[in-house]
């Protein structure tokens, strides 16, 4: 009959209005409003004792002004900004710079005549990544043979000036070392989560790390 289709449409919309399983906005960004009950639950106490302990927050929440941070956690494999760079592993081979489709990585190492000691010959003078033009494809991370460069997991690198978006080597040294598990199966095998687990040192992020004596002997034997 004419009109049943319209009624069916109305039923579908009503279902989406009413059923909680259809309501997906679970996370808001960067923060969301929270009421008094939510605040009390978060601090683990009941409403009355929370009001006594933090009267200002309680009043703010009743007026609808209290906010709490709310960010949906990303998957550990997320290709974020904020590269994790381990200088101790980097040899300045510039495979990442060569593999970048946009050519935004600039690497300058010390000239071989300048450094006297062997360990200083691969010192890095300049290591710039311009995330203003980077597309976070991760090919540089894929190219690095020494697992020195990893993708990060943040995405809040907004800035007011384009020049600030160029990560020079000091910034890369200072950045928190939370490598994403993108193209790093050894991190994934350990179940590392850059959001919840702590920072990783340079010993822990490599593929072939500190082989045991037996493994070393086996490798020599296979040659």
């Amino acid at each position, binding site marked *: 009959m*004419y009109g049943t289709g319209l009624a069916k449409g109305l039923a579908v*919309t009503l279902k989406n209005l009413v059923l909680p399983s259809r309501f997906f906005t679970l996370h808001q960004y960067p923060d969301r409003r929270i009421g008094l009950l939510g605040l009390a639950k978060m601090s683990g106490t009941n409403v009355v004792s929370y009001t006594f302990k933090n009267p200002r927050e309680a009043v703010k929440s009743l007026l*609808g002004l209290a906010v709490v941070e709310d960010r949906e956690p990303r998957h550990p494999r997320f290709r974020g900004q904020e590269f994790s760079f381990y200088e101790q592993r980097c040899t300045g081979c510039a495979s990442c710079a060569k593999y970048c489709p946009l050519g935004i990585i600039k690497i300058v190492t010390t000239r071989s005549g300048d450094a006297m000691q062997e360990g200083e010959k691969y010192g890095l003078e300049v290591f710039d990544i311009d995330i203003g033009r980077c597309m976070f494809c991760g090919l540089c991370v894929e190219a690095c043979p020494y697992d020195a460069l990893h993708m990060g997991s943040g995405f809040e690198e907004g800035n007011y000036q384009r020049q600030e978006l160029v990560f020079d080597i000091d910034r890369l040294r200072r950045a928190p070392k939370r490598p994403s598990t993108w193209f790093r199966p050894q991190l994934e095998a350990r179940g590392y989560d850059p959001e919840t687990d702590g920072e990783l040192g340079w010993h822990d992020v490599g593929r072939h790390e500190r082989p045991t004596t037996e493994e070393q002997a086996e490798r020599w034997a296979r040659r």
Partner: protein
Amino acid sequence: MLDFLSVLDFFKDNLPDPLDRLAYPIAGMTLAMIVINAVVMSTALYTWFERRVLGRFQSRRGPNRWGPFGLLQPMADVVKLLAKEDIIPDTADKPAFTIAPILLLVPMFLVFAVIPFGADSFLGRLNVGVLFILGVTGVSTLAIFMAGWASRNKYAMFGAIRAVAMLISYEVPMALAVTGVVVLAGSMSLLGIVGAQSVPYFLVQPLGFFVFMTAAAAEMSRAPFDMIEAESELGGGYITEYAGMKFGILQLAEFMAPLATAAVATVLFLGGTSGFDPIPGQLWFLAKAFALVFLMLWVRATWPRLRVDQIMGFAWKALLPLALLNMFVVAIELVVLQDSDTGAITRGDLWAMAAVNWVIAVVAIVITANVLGQRRLRPETPVPSPLANMAAEAD
């Protein structure tokens, strides 16, 4: 309580002597202020409600940043519109351009002036309330055309012409549906109609209710008849040249329309303030109006819009015959069932009418739908215009 006469007495008693003669205008202005403020505030609240409920229909939240639950969002909108520059096009007709939004808004207030919100609470006691409402809503049609014409913009005028064509087409079925109610109630006064509804008229005249709600939805340009908003995809619309607070007033009028329609429909079809005793009549009125408003929102969230020619076809080919049928059936039933001495209708008579009318309504809608539907779904081969070769020559 909020009756004009009681307020007038209050002022007459309490004002000192020489100002006595001003009691009449002062009483009127006080009540008008109260009503206007109440209506505008409830429209602002309605914009918040609509955005949140529509958001919830669409699995998202509506406004929720300003104020608890986003209740200050209308305030933020008003501040934004006030802060904008009021642009009037150079070639526009300035007086008409400025008056058009006001002319669109004032009829809504006038409609609210005659609606009985309670047994004694209303502003204007008119014997011909229904006629007043129908007449006053016609002025908003004029205002829309004025807005489009005064803009001196080709596309705005196209949009305005189309909007006016749609609006005047839908006034006819609306008036005829209301006629059915008036005939049954025996009076045009809104208070009288509320009193005569021992059985609510949407049960007694389902066809009339359906026609009225559909025609009213088209009058307000709400889905599925909101081609005026769709117009802005291609041809502009009558609000193209409006900016700043003038645009704000136009939006206010657009959001006040559902409230006014819900109020009028509650009075005419749902029984107004009647309800079970412990709950006061005003609350019943609000609950019924709220139900109608929610229904309109639900329809807006669900159905796509019809094309212009389909809208006009629907008005003249479907709604008009149904409204006429409703009027004839009600009149015939009235003659048959009416008590020949007193001319009164008993409750039992109304229920009998309800039973018959529901059957007639369903049959009529099915027949109309099948007859029209076949024609609509039949393939339409497009006819190329004789001017189709123009581009080839220009190449």
